[in-house]
C-alpha cells in the first residue's frame, strides 16, 4: 500500500533528448506529450532537451542517439530510444499500466 501511495504521490520525471526539428525528434516530442496528457493522474513531468542547442548535456547525461527518452525517477533510470510510436511498449517500459 505504501508503495502504491508513494508511487501515487511520486511524480514521474521524464526527460526527452531531441535533435532540433529532425523528423524523428518531432515525432518523439508529439508522442511524449500525448503520453503525458493522456495519463495526467500519473503525474508526469516532461522536460525536453534539444541537443542541437545544448550539445554538452548529451555528454553529461551519457546520451548516444536522439531521440532518447530518459525516466529519471522513480528509480531505476530507464532509457527508451526511438519515436515512441508504440505507446503500449513505452508505457510498459515506464512501469505504469
Amino acid at each position: 500500500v505504501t508503495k502504491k501511495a508513494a508511487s501515487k504521490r511520486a511524480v514521474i520525471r521524464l526527460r526527452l533528448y531531441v535533435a532540433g526539428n529532425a523528423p524523428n525528434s518531432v515525432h518523439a516530442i508529439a508522442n511524449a506529450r500525448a503520453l503525458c496528457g493522456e495519463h495526467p493522474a500519473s503525474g508526469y513531468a516532461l522536460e525536453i532537451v534539444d541537443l542541437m542547442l545544448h550539445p554538452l548535456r548529451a555528454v553529461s547525461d551519457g546520451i548516444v542517439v536522439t531521440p532518447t527518452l530518459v525516466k529519471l525517477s522513480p528509480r531505476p533510470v530507464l532509457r527508451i530510444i526511438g519515436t515512441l510510436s508504440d505507446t503500449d511498449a513505452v508505457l510498459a517500459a515506464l512501469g505504469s499500466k
Partner: protein
Amino acid sequence: MSTVRELTRRLAEAEATIRALVSGQVDAVVDAHSKTPVLLSKAQEALRLSEERYRNIVETASEGIWLIDASAKTSFVNGQLARMLGYTVDEMIGVQMTDVVCEADRPKAALALLRERAGAAICEDTTLLCKDGSELWVRVSATPIFDADGNYSGGLAMITDRTQFRIAEDALRRSEARYRQIVETTSDGIIASDEAARIVFVNRRFAEMLGYEAPEMVGSELRTFMHGTGAEESSARTRASRAEAKRSRDGMCLHRSGTQVAVEITECPVMDAKGQHVTVVRDVTESRKLQAQLMASDRMASMGTMAAGVAHEINNPLAALMGNLDCIAESLADLTSGDEHEHSAEQRKAWVLEELKSPLDDARSAAERVRFIVRDLKMLTRSPSEDSASKVDIEALMESSLRMASNEIRHRARLVKNYGRVPLVRANEARLGQVFMNLIVNAAQAMEEGNAQDNELSVRTTDNGTSVVIEVRDTGSGIAPENIHRVFDAFYTTKAVGIGTGLGLAICHRIVTDMAGELTVESTMGVGTSFRVSIPIAADDAPAVGATVPPPPASLRGQVLVVDDEDMVLRAMKRILSREHDVVVASSAKLALALCAQGESFDVILCDLMMPAMTGMELHHELTCIAPDQAKRMIFLTGGAFTDRAREFLLDANREHIEKPFDAANLRAVVQDRLRSMTGGTGPVHVV
C-alpha cells in the same frame, strides 16, 4: 547482483538503440570523439534518394547490368539482363559468370577476367548462353571494383545486345568481301583517289600492270604514274564536272621500268564524296596489237578482192601490147621480104614505117597502163613501217584508187569525177589509199550489177578552207536509219558471209581519225549513201603546183657504166643511152668494181640497188674506199622492193635514184642532168 542488472539493462538499451537505428527512428548520433550530436536524417534521406535514383537507372537501362564478386559469382543483375537471357533475377544470383558464356568463348572470358582483376577495363564481343540454350551476341564493357584496401572485390559489366549489329556487320562484311573479290579479280586496274588526286587505293591488277606492289602506290599522286598529256588531262579531269565523267580516253601509264603502257582510262567521281574519284585503267597493249593485225589482215583481204581485178586489168593492156608487137614484127618482116615486086624498096619502106607508127604508139600506151597498175599495187603492199606521213596529192591518189577498183565499178555504175583545186595534205599515202579503195568498193557494191547506166558513183574533192573534203557517193539502196550508227562498228557487215570482213569501215574510221580527220556518213533509203572524209590542211601545206618543165638544154656526151643483174634491163638501157653516150655494161657489181679497180673512169654510173652477191650499196661502199670520185657518180635504180636498209641508204644524203620502170626520155634526162651538174668539174665530158 546490481551489476548483473545494470549489464542487462545496458544490453537492452544497446539492443533498443540498434533496433531504433535499423528502423530509422534515430535522428542524430552523438559522436563520441567530438562529443557533439551528428544529424542522421539528411544523410539518410540523401542515401535513400540516391539509392532510388540508381535503382531506377539500373532497372530502366536498356543494357544488362551485371555485378560479380571476387570469385566471379553473380551478385547482382538487373531485370534487363535477366530478360535478355531468359532467367529471372533470382535465378541468376550466385551463378558463376563463365557458366553463362558460350563454350567457345569461355577461354577468352577467363582471360578477360584475369585482365580485369589486374585492373583493366574490358570491352569485348562475346556470345552468352540463354536459359533455353540459344546464343546471344553481346558486347561486354566491364570495370573492376576494388575495396577500400585496394583488394579486388568483383566487377561491374554492362551488356549490350549485338544481335542486330552482328547481322548487319556480317552482311556488310560479306558484301565488302564480294566487292573486294570483284575489284581484285577484274582484269582492269582500279584506283581510288582523293580530292588532291592522291591514291587511296589500288587493286592488285593496277599494281601488276605497272610493276609495283599495291601498298607502294598508295599515297602517291595518281599522275606520277601517268605519262605526258595523260597526266595533265587527269588532273584537269579531277576538276571537271560530273557531267563529263565516265568518258573513256586513251592514255599512257608509266611502268616502274620506265616503259609506257598503252591504256584506256575511265574516270568517274564518287557521288557522295567531294573530289574523290574512281579511275578504271584498262591495259590495251594486246588489243592495240590485235587491231594492228586486223588492219594488216584487212589490207590482205582488200588485196585478195583486188587480185582478180588486177589480173584482168593487166591482161587487157598486155594483150594489146603483145598484139601490137606481133603486128610490128610482121610489118618489119614485110619490109625485108622480096615477094612484092610491084613496089620499090623505097616505097615499101615508107609504107611500112607509116604502118608501124600506130601499133608502136598503142604498144607504148599499153605498157604505160601496166606500169600504172603495178605502181598502184605497190601502194597496197607497203608495210606499216612505211607509215610515215608525207604530202599527198589527193586527186592522184583518188585516180589510182579508182583505177584499181575500175573492175568493180564498170558493170555497176557510171563514174562521175568532180575534182576541185585542193592543196596537198599531210597524210600517209598508203593508208589513205586504203580508205579511198574501201569507200569506192563499198559504194560500187551498194549498187546492183547490170544497170550501169542507171547508177552513178561520184567522187568529189573540195577545199573548205580548213580541210580537204573527199566525198564518195553512190545511188544504191541506202542504209536504214537504225543501222547507220553501226556502219563504223567492227565486224558489222550487211554483205554475204565471205565477201566482207566487216572491218573495212571500222579500219577506215580508225585511219582517218589517226590523221586527225573525220569520216562521216549520210544515207537516204532508196536514194543512196555518201561517205565524206575530211582531212585538215596543215599550215605549211601549200596549194598543189604543177611540175615545171625546164627548157631542153644542149646534150652532153659522157662515159656511162650501167650495172644490173637483169640482162633485159641492161640491154634496154644500153640501147636507150648509146645514142648520146659511150655506154659500158656490167652484169654484176663485182664486174663493175673490177672495171673501176683497173682504172676505168666513168662520168655516170647507173647501178641497180638490189642485186644478188653484191648489192649496189656494197658497190658504193667499196668504191668509196678505192675510188671515191667514182662513188659520187652513182645513180641508183630501184624496182620498188625495198628493204629497210635500202630505204635508209637512199634517204641518207638524199641519194639520187630512178624508179623502174622508167621511160627512155626520163632516163636520158637524168643522165644529162648529172653530166650538166659536173661540167666545170673533172672528167671528159663532151658537148655533142
